[in-house]
């Protein structure tokens, strides 16, 4: 199994009364709350943590894209990935942005991914999320009724820009170019692995199954509700007649490791509460722009426990610490406890790429590094051998 270290790069000093005084951490977040010095310092700290994660033997380092958002300070993950590419030498550089429908022309994404692949010497994973409603429809003004069609077309353009050796004309519904001929081209041939971050949309399962992309399930609500999403994906894979290689899938999980279960319970309570009460405090009016979800997904969502969990979190002021643990939002404990739980999760969900969030909320640098170190030394070795009878076809050719 591949173990990845995922950084959201949260703003770490939202006030304690944030939930009471502000309606959303996303879209209309109050700019008066932002201290540029804190952001600048956080960037340094967070980038150092990602480099440290490679030293701690993680296989991949993940960044992603959010806009007008207080828990993700990366409107451009590519900027962060370029630094990571330069400061590391072995780990995969996993960019789980770009939301390709937002860029005009999407050719720019093809170019920047090619640059990152070269900067990392062939260690890039290129992620193509649709993007959340908050990021795309509200913060960027993208029309939700046409977003998915534009997204699919953008992927077509990028894939051809990477793989067609000749200059070509692209005649799309949303993008037209007489000359597409990117320079430079990716180091990995025919192209870097493509992963699609998703939150349970039926269409995302479809495109992953059809095109042999990795489905990277990014839910903050843990493996118990995540199983619903992963089961849906694996059903789709089976229906498409594809094999059940676990490396077709990735899953995101909050993790906190300490010397003992009791110590983990004490250490990770505050950062988890910060994340779920403040970082995940968003206004329900920014969730459902008409047209963002297809008819099939609307039906699925109405019955979805992932959505129910999200809406309950919003309505109730965030889950309690014990509820987070009980529901599996956060996996904590001694190394043995965590390893045992993560192995169970990986097997239950049938995932070959486990993306761990070992810094979350307002977790300070010392604890984030301790978490990472303990995981790397005492958890990771016991998990790496999982799925050794499968080959990972979706891993960058020059990452170890």
């Amino acid at each position, binding site marked *: 199994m591949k173990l990845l270290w995922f950084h959201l790069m949260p703003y770490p000093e939202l006030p304690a009364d944030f939930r009471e005084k502000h309606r959303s951490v996303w*879209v209309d977040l109050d700019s008066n709350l932002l201290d540029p010095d804190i952001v600048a310092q956080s960037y340094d700290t967070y980038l150092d943590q990602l480099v440290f994660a490679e030293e701690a033997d993680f296989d991949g380092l993940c960044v992603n894209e959010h806009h007008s958002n207080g828990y993700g300070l990366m409107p451009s993950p590519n900027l962060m990935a370029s630094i990571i590419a330069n400061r590391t030498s072995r780990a995969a550089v996993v960019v789980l942005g770009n939301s390709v429908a937002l860029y005009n022309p999407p050719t720019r994404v093809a170019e920047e991914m090619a640059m990152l692949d070269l900067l990392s010497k062939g260690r890039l994973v290129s992620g193509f999320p649709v993007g959340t409603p908050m990021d795309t*429809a*509200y913060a960027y*003004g*993208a*029309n*939700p*009724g*046409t977003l998915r*069609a534009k997204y699919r077309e953008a992927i077509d353009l990028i894939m051809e820009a990477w793989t067609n050796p000749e200059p070509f004309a692209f005649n799309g*519904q*949303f993008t037209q170019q007489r000359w597409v001929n990117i320079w430079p081209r990716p180091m990995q041939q025919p192209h870097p692995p493509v992963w699609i971050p998703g939150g349970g949309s039926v269409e995302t399962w479809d495109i992953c199954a059809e095109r042999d992309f990795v489905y990277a399930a990014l839910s903050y609500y843990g493996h118990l509700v995540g199983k619903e999403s992963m089961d849906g994906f694996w059903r789709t894979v089976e229906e498409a007649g594809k094999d059940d290689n676990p490396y077709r899938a990735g899953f995101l999980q909050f993790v906190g490791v300490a010397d003992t279960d009791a110590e983990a319970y004490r250490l990770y309570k505050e950062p988890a509460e910060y994340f779920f009460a403040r970082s995940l405090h968003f*206004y*329900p*009016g*920014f*969730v*459902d*722009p*008409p*047209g963002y*979800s297809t*008819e099939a997904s*609307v*039906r699925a969502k*109405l019955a979805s426990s992932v959505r129910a969990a999200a809406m309950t979190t919003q309505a109730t002021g965030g889950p309690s610490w014990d509820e987070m643990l009980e529901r599996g939002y956060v996996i904590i404990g001694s190394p043995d406890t965590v390893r045992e739980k993560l192995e169970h999760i990986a097997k239950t969900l049938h995932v070959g790429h486990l993306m761990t969030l070992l810094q979350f909320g307002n977790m300070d640098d010392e604890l984030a590094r301790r978490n990472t170190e303990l995981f790397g030394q005492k958890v990771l070795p016991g998990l790496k051998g999982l799925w050794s009878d499968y080959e990972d076809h979706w891993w960058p050719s020059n990452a170890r």
Partner: protein
Amino acid sequence: MPADRHVIYLPSIAGDPGSSPALAVLEAQGWTIVRPQLPGFDGESGFDCPNDYLGWLTALWDAVDATGTGPCPVIGPSVGGMLAADLAALRPEMVTKLAVLAPFGIFDPAHPGLDPYSVPTANRLEPLFENGVPEPFTGRFADKGEVEAPVARYLSDIAAASLLWPIGDRGLADRLHRIRCPRLVLWGAQDQINPVGTAGRWGDHTRIENAGHLLEWDQPDAVAAELSNFLAPA
């Protein structure tokens, strides 16, 4: 179809749940309300959004032509007002009189109003009215049952949202000069989502007091009186 007592009516941001009391007055006066079947506004399955505004105008032309009506007066509230104005501007031979009610199509940064799509889904109808949400809107799709009703409600919002996203401006200000037929512009004084401050961009207009965005439902008598006078032969 003879057009002399026909009037084309286009849907609002909340679709067209049936004749408002104001339209009922017109019908009682002998007007036949003709409703072109614009795609998506009915909440039925299988709707694909046109890729751009030209696609929408093409759909509008097709829907209007399919009615066999016209030339005749056209009434458009809200997003339907924007479409009606473009029909009058770009196909002037089809529109003998244009009545628009709080039309979108021109966004004034000085009067941005409430983003109707930043209201939680369950409450999205409320800011459209000053005097409560009328039953034809609350009860729309109820016959579809508990499971399908929310799906239909969601689907019925897609068409208008795609026309209005993100700020409901389709460059209409640059085409208003092409409208040469008589024009009536009515606006709810308490419109939260398309504030009456924008009305000046449309030229002469009439404020309807104690009315929100869908003013024909909030003040049917006042709106019916204005429409009747406007539509009456000279």
